[in-house]
């Protein structure tokens, strides 16, 4: 015997060859089952879960490659060794493309079988051992998540447990807690990882287009449908369909989604053709789904179809030391991007980060760290003076100072704000808003804020700062001219950046994404406008 005993399924339609393989394998100490065709092989693989499959390609019912694809689609991860008389490059390339461990060309002797099989089983054993070790030890990283707090360890465990099944997953959590990351983690941990992960933000798609986005459409289905287009459901076939902000889905669309979830079938818009797909549903919302049901905004039957495995992501303020782990991760990443030398956070900065309650969660922490890195060029350590005032103030006053309701919008990234356009032409420097005055030493400039963001208000901040609302960009008289007014390019640039910041609740990375520029560019622009004096810029 060369390996630990394993379960080996031999898929071979010629009895002589099957018998020879059986004798070889039992001689090696393995438990063996024989399947003379693809159909019985699939049934045995489902029920018996073999460690390895010796797969003949020429089978009487289906091609062996078809069986191979079906095994993988169903999440049967047995090591597959293809056995074929066709030693052509094309056949072998196809075998390896599908993920076969190895191939053996017929006829073969015992050694030719024992060597690749032994290697495949050894690799499988190591993978299982590693998985057991990973599961046993508390992990501070999981599929893109950072942090080993008990709350997150529980999340990781749920995701690991549910990954292998097809059960629908319903992710809840405040904005910025990583719901899409959790959905991706479910997909990447699942046997569907090799297929598509398709994400749709139900709240961001116009109501009229949502059905087409989910189910696709055919040419002529509606005005502008100039050709057939596949929807997310078809694209996710064999993979995972992530429906973000599902609570925003209109009720009439919920009916169609329910039918799709129940039957696995749908019709593209404008077509009577029924299509069947195999998708795993993962949904997310930052609302309480049961409250949405009770309020009549979410169908109860759809809720029970989708709310099979709930995953509740904890807010950052409940994740203890994860804040520092995540902050250090972002610091390393952004310092590399911005060519800074930061090695970490000084104790006073760490204390402030831990004490702050992060109403915008990880997304807010990400913004703060990027802001610090962009605006501070010197030093090895980030100290408290480099952190934006809200973080420092709450850190100094204690975490209880700033409660954070779940529905609270993401607070703004910390950045020196440009002035309201109405003030841009103010000629008297004494009339400049406070943020244009030189910042006192070791106190960072104020954040861009909207009037409805009370958490950045401070008794020490000038009223013009706390109530500052960037004026509407491009807000021209109602009768807009056909040609826009020609203004200096720099002015237009500033207006667009401010508009993007307003549109994204001052989420700089998202604003930058809308503008298709780097977030650090936005930070630098804001800093430059402050340094240069905006009243001269327009």
């Amino acid at each position: 015997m060369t390996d630990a005993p394993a379960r080996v399924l031999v898929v071979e339609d010629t009895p002589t060859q099957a018998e020879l393989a059986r004798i070889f394998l039992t001689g090696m100490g393995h438990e063996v089952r024989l399947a003379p065709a693809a159909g019985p092989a699939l049934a045995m693989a489902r029920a018996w879960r073999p460690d390895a499959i010796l797969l003949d390609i020429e089978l009487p019912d289906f091609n062996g490659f078809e069986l191979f694809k079906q095994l993988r689609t169903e999440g049967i991860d047995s090591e597959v060794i293809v056995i074929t008389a066709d030693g052509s490059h094309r056949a072998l390339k196809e075998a390896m493309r599908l993920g076969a461990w190895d191939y053996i060309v017929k006829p073969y002797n015992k050694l030719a079988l024992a060597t690749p099989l032994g290697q495949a089983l050894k690799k499988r054993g190591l993978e299982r051992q590693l998985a057991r070790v990973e599961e046993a030890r508390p992990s501070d990283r999981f599929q893109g998540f950072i942090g080993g707090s008990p709350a997150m360890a529980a999340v990781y465990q749920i995701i690991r447990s549910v990954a292998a099944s097809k059960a629908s997953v319903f992710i809840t959590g405040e904005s910025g807690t990583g719901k899409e990351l959790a959905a991706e983690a479910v997909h990447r941990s699942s046997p569907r990882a090799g297929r598509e992960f398709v994400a749709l933000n139900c709240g961001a798609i116009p109501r009229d287009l949502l059905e087409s986005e989910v189910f696709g459409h055919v040419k002529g289905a509606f005005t502008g449908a100039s050709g057939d287009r596949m929807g997310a459901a078809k694209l996710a076939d064999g993979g995972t369909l992530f429906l973000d902000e599902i609570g925003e889905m209109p009720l009439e669309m919920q009916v169609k989604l329910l039918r799709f979830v129940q039957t696995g079938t749908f019709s593209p818009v404008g077509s009577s053709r029924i299509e069947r797909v195999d998708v795993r549903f993962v949904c997310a919302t930052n609302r309480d789904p049961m409250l949405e049901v009770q309020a009549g905004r979410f169908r109860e039957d759809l809720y029970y179809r989708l709310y099979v495995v709930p995953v509740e992501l904890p807010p950052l303020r409940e994740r203890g030391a994860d804040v520092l782990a995540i902050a250090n991760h972002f610091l390393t990443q952004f310092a590399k991007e911005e060519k800074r030398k930061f090695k970490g956070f000084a104790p006073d900065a760490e204390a402030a980060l831990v004490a702050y309650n992060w109403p915008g969660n990880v997304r807010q922490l990400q913004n703060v760290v990027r802001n610090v890195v962009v605006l501070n060029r010197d030093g090895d350590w980030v100290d408290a003076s480099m952190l934006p005032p809200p973080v420092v103030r709450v850190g100094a006053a204690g975490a209880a100072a700033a409660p954070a309701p779940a529905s609270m919008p993401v607070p703004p990234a910390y950045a020196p704000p440009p002035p309201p356009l109405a003030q841009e032409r103010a000629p008297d420097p004494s009339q400049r808003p406070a943020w244009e005055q030189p910042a006192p030493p070791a106190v960072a400039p104020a954040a861009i804020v909207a009037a409805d963001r009370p958490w950045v208000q401070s008794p020490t901040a000038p009223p013009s700062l706390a109530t500052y609302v960037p004026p509407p960009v491009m807000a021209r008289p109602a009768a807009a001219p056909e040609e826009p007014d020609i203004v200096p390019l720099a002015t237009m640039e500033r207006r667009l950046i401010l508009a993007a910041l307003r549109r994204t609740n001052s989420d700089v990375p998202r604003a930058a994404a809308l503008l298709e520029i780097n977030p650090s560019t936005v930070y630098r622009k804001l800093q430059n406008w402050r340094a240069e004096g905006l009243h001269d810029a327009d």
Partner: protein
Amino acid sequence: MSLGADFAQLAEDLSPDDVRQVLGVFERDVRRLTAALVAASAAHDATTFRRVAHGLAGAAGAVGAKSLESACRAHMVRADLDPEVLPGIATKIEQLADAALVELAAFVAGLDRQSRRA
């Protein structure tokens, strides 16, 4: 007459009892498949003929009956397999199969003698 049968690899890999077991299965395969081959040729059914020849080639190759294996493979891959010539090919393959079984019987008899001596 040697038809290229080489059962030595089997004897190297398997115990005598296992060799007998495999060769017993092979004999049943050969009889079943040659009958199917003859039937396919009589029906001028080239598709079935190819599929059966493929199975017979695999069985022959597994035990080392090389001439039989080669003949089957040569015909199963021919694109110009004329239904009219199938009976002739089937007859030739049947003869090779019979010869392989004769050699097989001799090989098993040799194993038996060795077993008795031991």
